[in-house]
């Protein structure tokens, strides 16, 4: 538990550092997902950072490619590549593209993505392949809440339930915000859990910053042998830095050189570390 909290803190630290070095990027969503990524990569996923193409590995599809900084920071801390490389985020010639791009060779990237609404379909294709091959590994997909306004996501939701892909687990980053403001003002999503449930998914609502709750939800998802599972994870955009928290203007912003030390300090204090 404490160890995972510490990992989440380090993930957040590197998100801030890499974004500041880049001078642009998406701070809010990346910080908000740090606890979920800590649980996934340091507890839940079966994976081998030294052997990224291990055929038995669980796979994670990041549908919201714009929160690449949380994925990159986590992968580096897990040992896929040196943490120093995080400072090359978004630079010319870097393996750390603004949105994940496989062709640039960063280990641990399962899919080049960034156009919203596509990731769940790809994750479903992976889960279907594993079912055909009777491979018991699992596929995870990280979705944004605003992203759920894309119709194609619901095509995938319908198809995953139809094909009983219990080996598929989606996580919705329910921070309630998108670029133009609150999701409910831009395009209402509620009642969100009811929607997923009525589409045939095992639907769990959790606090996306509570390490134990996250761990337990993933464990419950694995127990389900019929339906795909979705964790609707309530999160705070920008979690850990009060200046950023819940401010939709920080969706697509990076801290400045001046802000960085203050933010790192806030981070330490807010997490009691």
């Amino acid at each position, binding site marked *: 538990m404490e160890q995972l909290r510490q990992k989440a803190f380090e993930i957040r630290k590197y998100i801030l550092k890499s974004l500041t070095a880049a001078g642009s990027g998406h701070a809010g969503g990346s910080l908000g997902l740090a606890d979920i990524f800590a649980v996934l990569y340091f507890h839940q996923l079966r994976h081998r950072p030294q052997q990224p193409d291990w055929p038995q590995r669980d796979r994670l599809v990041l549908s919201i490619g714009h929160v690449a900084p949380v994925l990159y920071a986590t992968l580096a801390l897990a040992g896929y590549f040196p943490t120093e490389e995080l400072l090359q985020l978004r630079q010319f010639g870097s393996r750390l593209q603004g949105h994940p791009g496989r062709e640039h060779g960063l280990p641990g990237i399962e899919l080049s993505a960034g156009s919203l609404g*596509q990731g769940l379909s790809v994750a479903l*294709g*992976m889960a279907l392949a594993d079912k055909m091959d009777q491979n018991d590994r699992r596929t995870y997909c990280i979705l944004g809440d605003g992203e759920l306004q894309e119709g*194609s996501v619901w095509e995938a939701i319908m198809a995953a339930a139809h094909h009983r892909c219990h080996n598929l687990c989606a996580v919705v980053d329910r921070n309630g915000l998108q670029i133009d403001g609150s999701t409910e003002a831009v395009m209402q999503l509620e009642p969100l859990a009811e929607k997923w449930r009525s589409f045939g998914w095992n639907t769990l609502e959790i606090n996306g910053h509570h390490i134990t709750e996250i761990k337990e939800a993933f464990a419950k998802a694995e127990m389900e042998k019929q339906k795909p599972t979705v964790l609707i994870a309530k999160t705070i955009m920008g979690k850990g830095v009060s200046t950023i928290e819940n401010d939709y203007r920080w969706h697509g912003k990076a801290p400045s050189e001046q802000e960085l030390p203050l933010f790192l300090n806030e981070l330490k204090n807010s997490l009691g570390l």
Partner: protein
Amino acid sequence: MNEFQNKGDKASRTGFGEGVKLAATKHKQLVGLGVDITQSVGMHFFAEAFPERFLSLGIAEQNAIGVAAGLALSGKIPVFATYGVFAAHRAADQIRISLCYNNLHAIIGGAHAGISVGPDGATHQALEDIACMRVLPNMTVISPCDATQASLAVQQAVESLTGPVYIRFGREAVPDFTDEQQSFEIGKAQRLRAGKNLTIIATGHMVWEALQAAKMLEKSGIAAAVINMHTIKPLDEKACLQAARETGRIVTVEEHQITGGLGAAVAECCSSHAPVPILRLGINDSFGESGKPEELMQKHGLNSEGISAAITRWLNGELLP
């Protein structure tokens, strides 16, 4: 000179479907994706033979392309077919990012290409699919001339390519005239007829019509060479430039808009290295409509008579597109 015989009319969608089944017999990792119109696009041959490898995904093309990407990332070879209008346009962004940017080996079949679809009308006649697919990095675009080559094309696409592939084919039974033994190689144009005055470069159903048009032109003393450009991307540039240099004039024929398709690809290629006059025959900036296939081909000048007449007028100095 090679004379081509019609072995009997056959729809290229049937050829495509038979080719998928043949490829699947050899390649256990081939998976078929269905979006409701399975029989109409020729996928039923595969679906009936290999039900355990056929995934029904409903009328949801965008999801189907994403699923294809996920399957390809898991070592499968997905084959997805629907009408070209939906395949190339409805799921365009998924094709661009999930398939092409990830450079995944997946086959997209675009059925009901061109106006020869007939009575269904404009909504179901794919006339811009080549244009939209050929601008995508990593994508291969194939437009086979008959059922025999549609089968060979999909088998070869499964066997020897490694990236995304778009194969378009027609609805109607049309002359099936190529020889199974005749070497068909993706990316390599076939010169079906020699001639010194001009070269007709045709694709899809238009290859047969071009051969007939060349015979008509011969009677008025015009020797037209005919090239079957079954692969539009990567374009066989050598064949285009050779045609330009040897015959000095090129006519392109396609069941597609004259902007963005085969004619545009040939013109782009020749303009850099062998600029010669090029006449582009096809659909000129309009939608299709209902009618019998032959009525529509007649209206747009896409039968042998129309092609030979347009070429004659062009050679007489008339301003055509």
